[in-house]
């Protein structure tokens, strides 16, 4: 019996050593374990309110609402319902005088670490509907028992949501050193008749902009690292499906890969030096990478099966991709030069559309469950941990990480037509982002600004 244990232990040692060797060889320092710990202690924050100081009726309330939602979505803060814990918000007016001081103390004693308040109004006293709006926000920290600082913003009435987003990102930046995600955007594809056109919206689903209007298929957009461009598959050229690039600020668009055949799933490396993509121009779908400076194209895969959907590790040293070389589609890893290929998924007979998290610790993908449902799954790059993230009806597709690695955007037919949703990386707080249109799909979350 002891002998059996010994032998199996020996087996583990050998297999583990082989596994470790594989990881070392690939230089996979991509696994930053515990970067988003489930037991992460959120910072309790209360939004006292954004008072209206002379602007339109909706102004303060709008900013307050956007700010609260941003704070909640940040997952850095725990948004405290102040009246819910017995704090009289009206006592917490601006400043630190009189009753406000006592109320702040009460909030701090109730465990609220940060309190935020502000006011908003018209910049100049004017009846002009387009007059500039201004906003002031202040932050009180109970640890130091002082107002640690504030922000003042001005801009046209059309940017009040962005004022709230900026303020929310400043709060995240102050307490984590990260830029926050409240000013990020999500690119996606929407159906217009028989066409599929590219759109961009704010991360919370607001401020939708149409980017293409060529009447053909425009598919699977991905952001450039600097957020200025999208790369995507275009059917505008009728004889081959090319990879195009579009500049958001100008709408200027051009073709960057035109090899013939079907070229899909472009993905720029984190440093912007390589464009990985799949193309069938030499027969079946294979992976290639284009050196964006020399324009040289290097083939990365060589086999009779379909290889597609490359996604870069945050260091740019490795790619995760889909391949059906084993029959059905499965997730594989390889070094960025095409060497050291190994299969990552072994559960189920359909795993596809992998995306590497910005923190490196997870790979999200579409998994087909034993009940033949297409859901989102997560797996660690070493294959040791795997979880199914979504459940229930509907076909889930196209996961895309938020730049902080705490959320995923994806499309789902859970409500009938394909729409875009956001979900926390722990599977909680599903939020629907698109409500207009019959088919919205292929979300791609922008990098942080």
């Amino acid at each position, binding site marked *: 019996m002891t002998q059996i244990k010994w032998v199996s232990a020996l087996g583990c040692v050998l297999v583990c050593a082989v596994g470790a060797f594989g990881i070392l060889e690939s230089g996979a320092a991509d696994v930053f374990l515990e970067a988003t710990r489930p037991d992460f202690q959120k910072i309790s924050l209360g939004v006292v309110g954004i008072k209206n100081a002379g602007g339109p009726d909706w102004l303060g309330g709008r900013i307050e609402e956007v700010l609260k939602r941003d704070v909640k979505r940040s997952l850095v803060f725990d948004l405290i319902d102040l009246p819910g814990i017995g704090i009289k918000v009206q006592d917490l007016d601006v400043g630190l005088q009189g009753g406000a001081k006592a109320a702040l103390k009460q909030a701090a004693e109730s465990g609220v670490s940060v309190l935020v308040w502000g006011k908003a109004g018209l910049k100049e006293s004017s009846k002009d509907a387009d007059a500039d709006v201004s906003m002031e926000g202040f932050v009180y920290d109970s640890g130091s028992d002082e107002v640690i600082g504030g922000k003042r913003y001005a801009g046209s009435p059309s940017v009040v949501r962005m004022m709230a987003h900026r303020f929310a990102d400043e709060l995240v930046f102050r307490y984590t050193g990260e830029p926050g995600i409240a000013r990020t955007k999500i690119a996606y594809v929407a159906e217009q008749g028989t066409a599929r056109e590219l759109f961009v919206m704010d991360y919370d689903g607001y401020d939708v902009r149409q980017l293409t209007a060529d009447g053909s298929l425009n598919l699977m957009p991905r952001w450039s690292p600097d957020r200025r461009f999208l790369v995507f598959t275009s059917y505008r050229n009728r004889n081959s499906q090319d990879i195009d690039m579009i500049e958001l600020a100008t709408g200027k668009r051009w073709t960057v890969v035109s090899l013939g055949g079907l070229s899909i799933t472009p993905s720029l490396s984190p440093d912007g030096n390589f464009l990985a993509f799949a193309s069938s121009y030499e027969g079946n779908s294979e992976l290639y990478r284009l050196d964006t400076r020399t324009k040289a194209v290097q083939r990365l895969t060589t086999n009779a099966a379909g290889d597609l959907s490359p996604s870069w590790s945050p260091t740019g040293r490795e790619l995760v991709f889909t391949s059906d070389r084993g029959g059905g589609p499965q997730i594989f890893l390889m070094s960025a030069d095409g060497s050291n*290929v190994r299969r990552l998924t072994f559960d189920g007979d359909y795993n596809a559309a992998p995306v590497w998290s910005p923190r490196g610790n997870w790979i999200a993908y579409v998994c087909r469950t034993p009940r033949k449902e297409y859901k989102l799954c997560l797996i660690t790059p070493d294959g040791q941990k795997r979880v199914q993230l979504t459940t229930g009806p509907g076909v889930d597709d196209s996961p895309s990480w938020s730049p902080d690695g705490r959320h995923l955007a994806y499309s789902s037919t859970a409500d009938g037509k394909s729409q875009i949703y956001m979900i926390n990386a722990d599977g909680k707080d599903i939020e629907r982002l698109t409500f207009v249109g019959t088919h919205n799909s292929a979300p791609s979350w922008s990098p942080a600004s």
Partner: protein
Amino acid sequence: MRKMLWVYGLALVISSSVVGLSGCSKTAVQSGGEGQGTQGAATGATPTSPSSDRSTSSADSFPDTTMQASSGGLRGLDKNPSEERVAGNSTMVAKAESSSSSAQQAVDTRAEQEALAATGLRDVLFGYDSWTISEDARQALIRNADWMKSNARAKVKVEGHCDERGTTAYNLVLGEKRAKAVRNYLVELGISANRLSVVSFGKEQPICTEHTDSCYQRNRRGHLAVKTGK
């Protein structure tokens, strides 16, 4: 006996790991070598198609997209904050391209549909996850091939389509496999390959949008369109 099994299992694990490893490194060498072979053979920045009117020269076709290291425009909290101007959304809103390409495509599509109605070319249906040509499909393709033989100047575009299940990306590859399976069978039936082109639409152009098995079956199709124009 049990001990034997353990040892045997262990040996199997080790040997398969080793085989797996050597297999990988062999693949690596191969793909690396092939990769170098194809380097420069195809330039990514080939001149854009004549139909794309807003194309630029290949010289500026790949801008520097490196992210500038910064705190993303955040200046931090300030005890006496100075006013920051918040700019509006700088994203350009697209105007419908009235120009040639989309209008021409609509015209071409209509012409193709009319041409198809006149020919009676038949769609071919596929099984779930499959690109195998079924017996029913063979019969349809034999008739389609006959039509092509008696209309020797017609060129046909074979479209591969999928149902909504599965991912956008993998369905594009699956649709291409279906289109190529149809093309290859037509070639076997004696149709010249240069009269046949393939295109995959994945799950992007369904002819039926209900979430039912019968609808899924209608969408898993190879569609033959007579090419009009160029």
